[in-house]
């Protein structure tokens, strides 16, 4: 009975306990009690994950009555990492939920579902065999569906989002089921350790790889399987969307890693190319949609697709490089991918929680109607701002370190000590760098827009003008996330080493801590010390600040009534740029990709058609993947359904006829 085992058991027990509590305590105490108990579940998960990441071993075996191996939970270092990430997010979400959850999302069902959602999510990476993996996966999926359905009362979007979400997550479940079935059939065992025996070069392996990647990809939100993200995230209660986007999506990533480096390591080169392409497309498409989105939660959802895309890009690049024996660069790339996982969890949680606070304070999700929140909600503003910097991958945040490592891995990948690795690599790497660069640039624009429009300038609507800072717990949770972002960004060295240890001992060779806590990549001779950078910035800033202090004594700042608007009276906030107008140039540039539908109606004055009375411009950007790929399939499915209905018209005779026909068929079959 090791500590890890205890931790695993504790999570399960706490989950049951918390659901019992939820149903027993009275309504007014419910949120507090259940929230705290959920936080405890995640704390246990975090502790367990940390232990496992540090190398602690231990397994929890649950015997089944079925004639299959018992369910075994036994996290390795990698699993521990993901358990830690999921649990850390879980803690924030639970704490935030205590104050945030209200109405339907504070119901018994929701809180119980949250408990199971968290435990399922935290135990997926602990699974040591296909059965328990799929079980935990399904617990996670169903619980999240229930949570999403919480305020279904609020109209059709919620229910349609739920339909999309459950359809996609069940699809992914089926794919996983199929993939693992084939794999365990090949390995003649459901335990992951046995599955490693299957050769990665065999055709079976390739089939399994494709199926599983599709399954995990749809959970991770890769294009074209991302359609549920932009629907589910905006409609779910904000703390739930935070949990989904920051933690649950990562389980898809974990699955991909499980397949690529644990179950079927050293696969053929085209696996890497496939992941590279999927990731690149997801990154570009996601960030483009995010850049033109004006619903803040939709924007965040699409940016999740982008980040997952980058993660898969790193994974794919690492596999490609490894298959050409550029191991050093390969390790750097995959460590970078893991860093992206951690960093994305760190900044996406506060972003969604911040969006929740905005929603709570103004009732608005549409950036076009926000503004000036920075002064009205300083704490939320600070957290959201720092998280935006992280999402935009600017120093000294975690996102920057991750992207820096990824780029270093890529540019040093194409050559191993001066020798060209191979043609595909030398073409893939520049393309990958270009994709990352464009993605980073657009992410910059996206989050400058998100923060600038929402928190700066003047309120664009009465709701925003009357905004107020949110309760303490809802301020603290995002701020913790913000602190984490800065901590990861300032002290990346130890983190990177830990991540490398999750990959394997040989990966640890390629990364080390430099200076105070900077990260160094000895094998490719590059280093980054954010603290040093910060110190340098501080040093050069000192003279400037002294000048400011001196001059501002003699020349104090004067506050003028109006912003400069040509001296006119009419200078109202509606004149400011909105999120839509902010993204408009970009929309034009990428017109061919996004294909927005524009609709201009001009009404003339009755007297003369040369005088315009009113002009109405409507512009909508729809998800082309959805309209182009899913709609046809769905309509086809509808048609099948209509045909199927013909079979059942309720007449007894027809049913008797069916059974009679069936009987005849059986007889014929037997007689043959």
């Amino acid at each position: 009975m090791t500590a890890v085992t205890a931790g695993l058991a504790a999570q399960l027990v706490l989950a049951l306990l918390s659901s019992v509590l939820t149903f027993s305590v009275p309504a007014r105490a419910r949120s507090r009690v259940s929230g705290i108990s959920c936080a405890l579940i995640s704390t246990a998960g975090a502790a367990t994950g940390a232990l496992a990441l540090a190398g602690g071993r231990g397994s929890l075996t649950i015997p089944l009555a079925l004639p299959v191996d018992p369910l075994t939970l036994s996290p390795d270092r990698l699993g521990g990492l993901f358990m830690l990430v999921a649990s850390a997010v879980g803690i924030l979400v639970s704490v935030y939920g205590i104050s945030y959850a209200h109405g339907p999302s504070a119901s018994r069902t929701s809180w119980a579902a949250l408990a199971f959602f968290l435990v399922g999510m935290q135990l997926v990476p602990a699974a040591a065999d296909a059965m328990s993996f799929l079980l935990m996966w399904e617990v996670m999926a169903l619980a999240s569906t229930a949570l999403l359905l919480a305020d279904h009362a609020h109209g059709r979007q919620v229910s349609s989002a739920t339909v999309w979400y459950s359809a996609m997550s069940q699809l992914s479940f089926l794919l996983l089921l199929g993939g693992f079935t084939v794999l365990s059939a090949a390995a003649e065992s459901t335990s992951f350790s046995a599955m490693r025996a299957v050769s990665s070069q065999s055709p079976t392996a390739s089939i399994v790889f494709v199926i599983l990647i599709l399954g995990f990809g749809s959970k991770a939100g890769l294009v074209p399987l991302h359609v549920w993200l932009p629907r589910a995230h905006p409609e779910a209660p904000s703390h739930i969307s935070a949990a989904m986007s920051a933690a649950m999506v990562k389980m898809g990533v974990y699955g991909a890693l499980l397949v690529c480096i644990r179950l079927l390591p050293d696969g053929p080169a085209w696996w890497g190319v496939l992941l590279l392409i999927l990731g690149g497309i997801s990154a570009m498409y996601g960030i483009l949609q995010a850049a033109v989105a004006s619903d803040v939660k939709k924007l965040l959802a699409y940016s999740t697709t982008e980040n997952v895309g980058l993660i898969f890009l790193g994974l794919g690049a690492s596999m490609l490089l490894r298959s050409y024996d550029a191991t050093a660069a390969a390790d750097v790339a995959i460590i970078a991918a893991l860093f992206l996982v951690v960093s994305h969890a760190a900044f996406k949680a506060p972003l969604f929680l911040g969006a929740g606070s905005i929603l709570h304070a103004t009732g608005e999700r549409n950036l076009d109607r926000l503004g000036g929140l920075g002064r009205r909600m300083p704490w939320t503003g600070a957290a959201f701002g720092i998280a935006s910097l992280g999402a935009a991958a600017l120093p000294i945040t975690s996102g920057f370190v991750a992207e820096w490592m990824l780029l270093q891995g890529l540019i040093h990948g194409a050559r191993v000590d001066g020798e060209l690795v191979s043609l595909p690599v030398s073409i893939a790497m520049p393309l990958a760098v270009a994709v990352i660069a464009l993605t980073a640039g657009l992410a910059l624009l996206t989050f400058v827009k998100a923060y600038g429009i929402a928190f700066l300038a003047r309120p664009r609507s009465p709701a925003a003008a009357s905004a107020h800072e949110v309760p303490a717990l809802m301020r603290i949770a995002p701020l913790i996330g913000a602190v984490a972002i800065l901590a990861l960004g300032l002290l990346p060295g130890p983190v990177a080493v830990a991540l490398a240890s999750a990959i394997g001992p040989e990966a640890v060779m390629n990364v080390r801590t430099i200076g105070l806590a900077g990260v160094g990549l000895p094998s490719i001779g590059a280093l980054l010390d954010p603290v040093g950078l910060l110190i340098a910035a501080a040093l050069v800033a000192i003279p400037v600040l002294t000048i400011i202090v001196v001059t501002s004594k003699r020349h104090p700042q004067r506050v003028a009534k109006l912003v400069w608007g040509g001296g006119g009276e009419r200078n109202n906030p509606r004149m400011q740029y909105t999120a839509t107008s902010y993204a408009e140039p970009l929309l034009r540039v990428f017109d061919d990709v996004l294909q927005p539908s524009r609709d201009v109606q001009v009404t003339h004055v009755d007297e003369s058609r040369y005088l315009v009375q009113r002009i109405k411009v409507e512009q909508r950007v729809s998800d082309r993947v959805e309209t182009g790929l899913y709609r046809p399939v769905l309509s086809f499915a509808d048609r099948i359904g209509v045909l199927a209905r013909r079979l059942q018209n309720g007449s007894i005779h027809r049913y008797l006829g069916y059974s009679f026909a069936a009987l005849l068929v059986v007889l014929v079959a037997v007689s043959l």
Partner: protein
Amino acid sequence: MNWSALIIAVIQVVFFVLLAPLLIGVMRQVRAKLEGRVGAGIWQPWRDLRKLLVKDPVRAEDSSWLQRAAPVTLLVSSLLLCVLFPLVGAMTVTLIPGDLFVVVSVLLIGVVALALVGLDSGTAFGGMGSSRHMMVAALVEPTLLLAVYALSIPTNSSTLAIIVETRLETPAVILSPVSMLAMVALIIAIMAETGRLPVDNPSTHLEVTMLHEAMLLESSGRDLAWLELGSSLKLAALLGLVANLLVPWGIATTSSALAVIIGLVAIAVKVLLLGGLLAAGEVFLAKVRLFRVPELVAGSFALSFLAVTASYLIA
């Protein structure tokens, strides 16, 4: 910790703070001469800065702390560029080498600070400038990164100082088609990044045609001074980098006083010369339509991409 590099870094910062306004002055003067005017003299930017520092800044009620913080951020990011770039000497401070991606991201900090100033002002023009500015920055980044990637390949290191040193030792690298393609791309990218013609007209008064200027419309006094100084520093540092990549000769590789002095003189001459050429060229350029800018950027992107692949596959 190698102190010589540290000292050189300090020298670079101080020297470029002195040089940057002078560069702007020279460029304006060249332009004025070519337009048949007398020109305000090369010290005018200094006078402007001095004056702005002794004025009382004004800010609107609705604007936030960013109105004061962002200009400083921009200036600090530009100063950091002067620390990280190999301008006077090609040594690297041990823990903060001028790594290409770090440099680019430091550059972007300034870009973001400026964009936020534009948004914070809460005027129509501020938002417009900010939006256009960010779009250009977003589109330019791939070119920027790929160009520096191409330059980093021959040395197999992404540290600017090492790249410059290699070019100093083997000038053949400079003339190689790869580096030529990359330099052309890099220069176009820098023109776009620093808001020069043909992407942006630095001397315009028509708000509707503005990119960079439109974001400053609300700033005044010392805030404006920081923004102006920061932008000119950025231009000076980037020109200095280009100059050292094109003609690395004269840059100090040892920390002897003589070498440093030579380095100072060399970089000053290079930067001012390049600036003069730039200004002279700008006289004959018109600003392209905003929606032709992507075309320009795409062209430079194509060049930089070809530079990278070629450097792998030709040589």
